[in-house]
Structure formats: C-alpha cells, structure tokens
C-alpha cells in the first residue's frame, strides 16, 4: 500500500473514531434499515418455502385422474410422471376395489405404501406398515366395526370369484387419519393384484409438487392438453394457501422496504448533513491547504462506505435474529437462513450510505475556506 493510500485510510478511520457518537447514530440508521430489510427479506422468501414443506403434511396439491371409466395404466402413470418431472417431491398411485369380509363389503385401497406415506405424512399407524404381500393396514373405523386388532388374520374375498375362498391377510397396523382412509383397508398394489387378477388400473395419482399456483396450473394444462385419457387437477385448498402466504408476504416486504429505504435515506442524509456542518472548518482548512472539492468528497465517500459496512454488518446480524424470531413466533417455522442475505445487505447498506451522502457531498463543494476559517 502506498503512502497516499495509507494516509487516506488513516484520515478516514481517525475521523471515524473521533466522531464516535455521530458514527453510532449514522450506523444505527443504516443498521435499522438493513435489519428490517434483511429480516423481512428472509421471512418473505424463507417462510413460504418452509410453509410449502409444512403444507405438504396436509397431503397432495396435485392429482391426476382417469378421463373416463377406465383406470390409468402404467404407461399413463409414466407419462404423468414425465410431465411433473423434478417438481414432484412425492408421488403415489392408488387403485380402489371392493372385497368381502364375511360377506360384508369393504373398500380396499391399493398403493405403493412407502410412497403413499410420503404423500400423506399425516397418516398415523398403530403397529407397522405392511412389509409383505400378506399384510394389510385397517382403517380405524373398520377396525372398530369388526374389532380387528394388530396381528389378527383377516380373510378377504374377491366378490366375483365363484369359489368364495378367502385369502388370509395379517393386520400389521391400524391406520388413523381422521379422514376417508379410516374407512378403508389399505394394502400394497401387489397384494391387491392377487384379488383383481394382476391388472393395475389406477383410480388416482397424487403428487406433492414443489411449486406455486402458476406452476401447478401450468402442469394441469400440459397434462390435459396431451389428451392422453388423463385429467389433472390442482388441490385448491392446499395450493391457494401457499400462494396466498407467499403473495401477502412479498407484497408486505415491498411496501415496507420502500418505506424503510426512504426513512433510512432521510435519516442518513440528515446525520451526514450535520457532520458536514460540524466539519465545515476542517473542510475549509483542507481546501486552503490545496485540496479540491473532489479530494474532500472522496474522503467523505470513504467514510460513508465504512459507515455503510458497519451499519450493514450490525443490521444483517440483527435482521437474521429478527427473521428467526418472526418465523418461530408468528409462523411456527424454523428459519432456513440463505447466507446470500449477508453480502446483499452489505451492498444495500453501502449504496444507501452513498446515496445519503450525495446531498451533504454537494455542500462540501460549496464550502469556501474564507467563509469558515475566519479573519477580520
């Protein structure tokens, strides 16, 4: 570092420490702005993402149904998977059938059990998920009606079979959902095939899609436009909740950001104006020693950058804390901090400090040494 640059840094740092109270006030102005913006930014962009994950626990937000009386084939399942692609967080196909237990009709849902549990994470199972083709889950209401218990053998029959021989299956768990599944018998697709004769015809495919309303609507159009015997639908109650939260928060952050920017600018400009007034004699002296306005302004800009960095650093730390507080207390979600917020906030703070110093810097150029150094 050459002597000129070293002296420049020496001057701006010495000036900084000499006016610590002013520096603290100016830094606080920037810190408050930076904290609010970084905090709200994190909330606005992290909470909807977290809420999406949380809302996945309420079930699928996108379904594909057969367009007609025929069920969906494996080919149609693959075609739907291809359209949804990487946006699918989880996917499960379901096939429904009616079986008999002691001549009583039971509705049975066949599915890929691990996938179904991923799409419907709200399932509570007393016992275990079926691990073999001879195990089933019994919905809570069915279990109560027929007094089924975990470990019990249940004989099920396909109603159209002439011989009426029941296949004995073991209850691995009782399923509690508070929903329609409580009235069902749930088994793997392979187990169900043993009753339906090896035909897979899915009645519905459920997807948990990572995306907002626009993404989901686009997927609906894409599948429906294929005219492949499939009809896609968005589960409105889930997707609209997500979109609503994201939209509300993002609108809020824009409004508050603009207000905070203006307030911070006004505050920093007022503080730096006061600093220029306090330092008019020093500025006049420097000009008397041969400095031109540009020299003095470059020192002032250097101090403003330092001010922005300090205010921004304090602000972003406070902002992360605020965002975490708001997320946990107001939205009950754990904040997932995106560390890009740190450089972005620092850059924002420096820009605010620089813009805030424009008006005071213009005053520097107008200071005349004769006016401030006195004389007769």
């Amino acid at each position, binding site marked *: 570092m050459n002597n000129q640059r070293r002296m420049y840094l020496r001057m701006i740092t010495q000036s900084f420490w000499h006016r610590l109270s002013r520096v603290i006030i100016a830094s606080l102005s920037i810190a408050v702005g930076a904290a609010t913006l970084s905090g709200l930014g994190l909330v606005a962009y992290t909470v909807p993402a977290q809420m999406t994950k949380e809302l996945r626990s309420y079930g699928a937000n996108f379904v594909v149904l057969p367009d007609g009386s025929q069920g969906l084939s494996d080919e149609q399942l693959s075609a739907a998977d291809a359209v949804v692609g990487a946006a699918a967080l989880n996917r499960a196909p379901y096939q429904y059938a009616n079986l008999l237990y002691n001549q009583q009709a039971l509705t049975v849902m066949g599915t890929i059990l691990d996938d179904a549990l991923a799409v419907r994470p709200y399932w509570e199972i007393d016992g275990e998920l079926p691990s073999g083709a001879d195990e089933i889950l019994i919905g809570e209401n069915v279990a109560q009606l027929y007094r089924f218990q975990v470990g019990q053998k249940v004989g099920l029959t396909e109603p159209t079979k002439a011989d009426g021989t029941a296949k004995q299956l073991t209850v691995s768990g009782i399923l509690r959902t508070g929903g329609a599944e409580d009235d069902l018998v749930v088994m793997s697709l392979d187990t169900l095939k043993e009753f339906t004769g090896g035909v897979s015809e899915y009645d519905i495919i459920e997807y948990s899609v990572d995306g907002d309303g626009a993404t989901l609507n686009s997927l609906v159009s894409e599948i429906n436009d294929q005219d492949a015997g499939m009809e896609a639908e968005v589960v409105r109650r889930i997707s609209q909740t997500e979109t609503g939260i994201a939209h509300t928060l993002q609108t809020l952050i824009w409004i508050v950001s603009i207000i905070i920017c203006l307030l911070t600018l006004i505050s920093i400009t007022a503080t730096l104006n006061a600093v220029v007034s306090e330092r008019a004699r020093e500025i006049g002296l420097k000009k008397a*020693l041969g400095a031109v306005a540009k020299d003095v302004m470059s020192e002032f800009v250097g101090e403003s950058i330092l001010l922005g960095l300090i205010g921004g650093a304090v602000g972003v730390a406070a902002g992360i804390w605020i965002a975490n507080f708001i997320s946990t207390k107001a939205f009950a979600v754990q904040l997932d901090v995106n560390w890009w917020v740190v450089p972005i906030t620092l850059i924002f703070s420096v820009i605010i400090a620089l813009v805030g110093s424009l008006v005071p810097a213009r005053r520097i150029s107008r200071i005349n040494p004769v006016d401030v150094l006195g004389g007769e």
Partner: protein
Amino acid sequence: MTQTVTAQQTPGSTLESIYSVQGVSRRYGELAALDNVSLEIGKGEWLSIVGPSGSGKSTLMNILGCMDSPTEGIVLLEGERLDKMGEPELANVRRQKIGLVFQQFHLVQHLSAVENVMLAQYYHSIPDEQEALAALERVGMAQRATHLPRELSGGEQQRVCVARALINHPDVILADEPTGNLDEVNEKIVIDFFHQLHDAGTTLIVVTHDAEVAAQGQRQIILEHGRIAREVTDVASTPTKGKPANGPQS
C-alpha cells in the same frame, strides 16, 4: 487614483517581484473591503500588513493566498494571473507555492501533530512521515508528534501549524495574526522561526495587529478603509511589544 507601493530592496536581494497587485478591489455589494490597491512584493521580502479591524488586511491576505479573487484588478504571482484562475487552478497554486499560518491554528482535531503536517503533504504530493517528523523537529515539536491538538498548548499548536506551512517548501508563507493567540515565549519562538525562514530566502507576508511583530518585517503597509494609507520602511524604530501597529509615519 491607484496608489502603487513597490517592493523594498534589501541588501543582497533583487527587485524582482513575487507578487504584483494592480488596482485590486474586492467588493461585497456596496461595501468595498479593498479599494483600488496596488502593491509589489519582492521575492524573499518580509512584508507586514497592519491596520485596524475592517481595514481589509485579511481580504488582501485571502486574495494573495488564492482563497479569494478580486472583483476588479490584476494579481500576479510569479507572473501568473491569479485573478483569471478558477478554483482548481487556485487550489493548485495554494498547494504548490503557498504556506498558510493562521491565528486560530486550524489543526484537524482528530489527527496527531505529525498527521496534521502530513495532511499538507497529502494534498501536495506524497505523505512522508519522516519528512513530517523532521519539520516538527525544526519547530521543536518532535517530542509531541503523536499528540492530538487538544493535548497541545496554543504555542505548540502554532508551531505545528508553522511546520505544516513549511513542509512543502513554499515560495511564500502567509501568516494571519500568527502570534495573536500566543504568550510572549511562544511568540518569540515563532518570530525567531520566521527569521530563519526569511534568512533562507522565503517570502513572508504577515498580517498583524501587533506593532512589535509588524516591525520584524522589512516593510510595513498600513491599510485603512480598504486602501493603503501608508508604507513604512524604517524598521529600526520598533514599537513596544503589544502596542497596536497603527501606522508609524513613512
């Protein structure tokens, strides 16, 4: 009518002018702080400018120091017309040719003594701490180099101000009431130092109320109501210390 006062020839000096002031006026609306002043100042000369408050001493000083421009007239410094220059050119002349000493010292309060001296180097060329320390050594302030202005007495601050004025080896030292805030001991230190600078060939222009300080110069001009009222070249008749320099007869 323009009144021209010429440079005083001293033993070993020439009549070559460093400053030529020709019919200079400085008006603020209707008020003329300087009114048609003409003056020649020789290279290496020690000129004292005296006069009562409001006589135009500081206005003349500001114009000579390139901090103000006349509303009328011509000012030449080493042949260059200052009255035609804009602010950047005037700032360059201040940097390169002029050292300023103020009554109020005007040290930057958050910089140490040596940093205040380096400040003048910073705007002139390249700061050199060793050179700045040497300048403080010359004024007997090397031991206080790292002290802030508030930790120094008035006399010490003025010596730092003098070190700052001479650090860039200016052609001219302009001093505005340099001893106005000093006690007798410090006044003597500063005046002795001015004598050293003058002996080394530096042009000194000193504005003062103090007759004894004014008498140190080779020549005095007495301003009244913005005009040069008299000129005194007889420096032998030095008035008593502290007596106002109200214009001995030329």
